[in-house]
C-alpha cells in the first residue's frame, strides 16, 4: 500500500479528514486515483485498510469541527457547496469502482481514525459494496396535473329545487373538492403503475418522500420520487424504458436522472 496510507504526519493540528465514501479496487499505484477536487480544492486521496479504501481529503477544523460545522450548516450557500463537492467526489469514483457514499459531514481527526472505522465496519462495508457493485442509482419523478387543470371550477351550479345560494355554493364546492380528489387519485394510481414498471427493470427500488414544489423547483405536486438500483450494463435500457413511459404518459411529466452513485442503496446491514 502507498506511503500516505500509513502516515499521519500530514495532519498538522487543526486539520481533520473528511471522508466521502468507501470503495475498493481503485488502482492506488497511479498518482491520482481520484481526479475530482475535494472540499476547498484539497486533493482527494485514498486511505486503505484491509482491502477497503476510504476517500478522504484534509479539512480545516475551524470550518469543519463541531463548532464550525454547527455554524456553517446554517448557511445554505455553504451547505450547497459542500453537498455538491461531496457528490462530485463520490460520483467521480462511483463510475469506476463499487462505492458506498457516506453521509455528509463524516470527519475524523486523522487517518488513524479513518482506518479504525474501516476496521470496525469492515464486514458491513464489504456487504454494502457487494450489493452495489456494477450498479448505479437512477431517479425518476412524476408529477400530478397542474392544480386546477382538472377541477371543474366553472361548472354551473346544479339546480337544487328551491335551495338558496348558500346551498348551491356548497354543492359547487363539494363538486370541486371531489374533482380534485379524483384527479389526485388518478395521479397517485399512475405513479404506482409507473413505479411498478420501473421496479421490474431494476435490482432494487425505493420510494422517497415527494419533494415540495418549492424544493423541487417544479410547479406541480410530486406524486413519485423514486430511486432504482440498476445494473450499469442495463442503464441505457432503463433510461429508454423511462423515456417510453414519459412519452406514453405526458401528463405525469416524468423527470429521469442518472446514473447517480448508489446513495439510496448503500446501507450497513445490521447482522
Amino acid at each position: 500500500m502507498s506511503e500516505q496510507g500509513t502516515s499521519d504526519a500530514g495532519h498538522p493540528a487543526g486539520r481533520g479528514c473528511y471522508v466521502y465514501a468507501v470503495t475498493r479496487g481503485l488502482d492506488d499505484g497511479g498518482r491520482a486515483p481520484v481526479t475530482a477536487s475535494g472540499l476547498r480544492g484539497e486533493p482527494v486521496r485514498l486511505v486503505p485498510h484491509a482491502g477497503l479504501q476510504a476517500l478522504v481529503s484534509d479539512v480545516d477544523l475551524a470550518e469543519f469541527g463541531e463548532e464550525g460545522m454547527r455554524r456553517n450548516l446554517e448557511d445554505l450557500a455553504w451547505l450547497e457547496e459542500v453537498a455538491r463537492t461531496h457528490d462530485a467526489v463520490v460520483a467521480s469514483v462511483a463510475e469506476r469502482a463499487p462505492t458506498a457514499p457516506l453521509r455528509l459531514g463524516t470527519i475524523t481527526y486523522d487517518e488513524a481514525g479513518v482506518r479504525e472505522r474501516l476496521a470496525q465496519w469492515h464486514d458491513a462495508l464489504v456487504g454494502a459494496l457487494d450489493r452495489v457493485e456494477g450498479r448505479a442509482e437512477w431517479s425518476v419523478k412524476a408529477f400530478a396535473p397542474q392544480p386546477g387543470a382538472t377541477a371543474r371550477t366553472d361548472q354551473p351550479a346544479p339546480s337544487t329545487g328551491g335551495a338558496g345560494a348558500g346551498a348551491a355554493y356548497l354543492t359547487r364546492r363539494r363538486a370541486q373538492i371531489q374533482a380534485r380528489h379524483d384527479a389526485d387519485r388518478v395521479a397517485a394510481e399512475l405513479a404506482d403503475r409507473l413505479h411498478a414498471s420501473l421496479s421490474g427493470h431494476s435490482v432494487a427500488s425505493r420510494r422517497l418522500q415527494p419533494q415540495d414544489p418549492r424544493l423541487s423547483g417544479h410547479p406541480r405536486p410530486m406524486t413519485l420520487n423514486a430511486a432504482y438500483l440498476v445494473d450499469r450494463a442495463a442503464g441505457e435500457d432503463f433510461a429508454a424504458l423511462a423515456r417510453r413511459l414519459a412519452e406514453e404518459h405526458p401528463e405525469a411529466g416524468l423527470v429521469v436522472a442518472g446514473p447517480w452513485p448508489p446513495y439510496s442503496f448503500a446501507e450497513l446491514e445490521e447482522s
Partner: protein
Amino acid sequence: MPVSETARSHPSYARPPAPGTSHAPQPANLADILERVLDKGIIIAGDIKVNLLDIELLTIKIRLLVASVDKAQEMGIDWWRNDPMLSSRDQSLAEENKQLRERVAALERGQGSPDTNGNARGNGGDRADSEDGGEEAAQHDAREAREPGGE
C-alpha cells in the same frame, strides 16, 4: 466562506429541473443532492459529531423556506424530520427538541399557531409527553444522536 455564495441561496435553491427527461452531466437539482447526501448514504460516526437536527437550517429554515410547516406536513415533506440517523431511543427527544424550535420560530414570526404544533406532531407518534420541560436535556441527548445505534 465566499461572500458571493451567500447572495444566491434562494434562486439556486429554486432552480427548476430541465423539462422532460434529463441526465446526470447537467448540474443536479440541489434538492436531489441534499436529499441524498443528508438523508441517504452510510452513517459512520466520525470524531466530529454534529447532530443535523441541531441545525436550525435543516430542522426549521429549509422547511420554512420551501413551504409552510402545515403545507410541508400535508405534502409529506419531512425527510429531514424522520431522520434515520436517529435511533428510536433518541427520536422522541430530537422530535420534541425540533418542535420546540418550531414553536419558537413560529412565535418569533408572530404567527404562533398552535395548530402548527398539532400537525407537526401528527406523524410523530412516540414523542415524549412533556412539552415544557427538559429542552436542555433534549438538546444534549440529541447531540449524541448521530452515533448510529448507540454503539
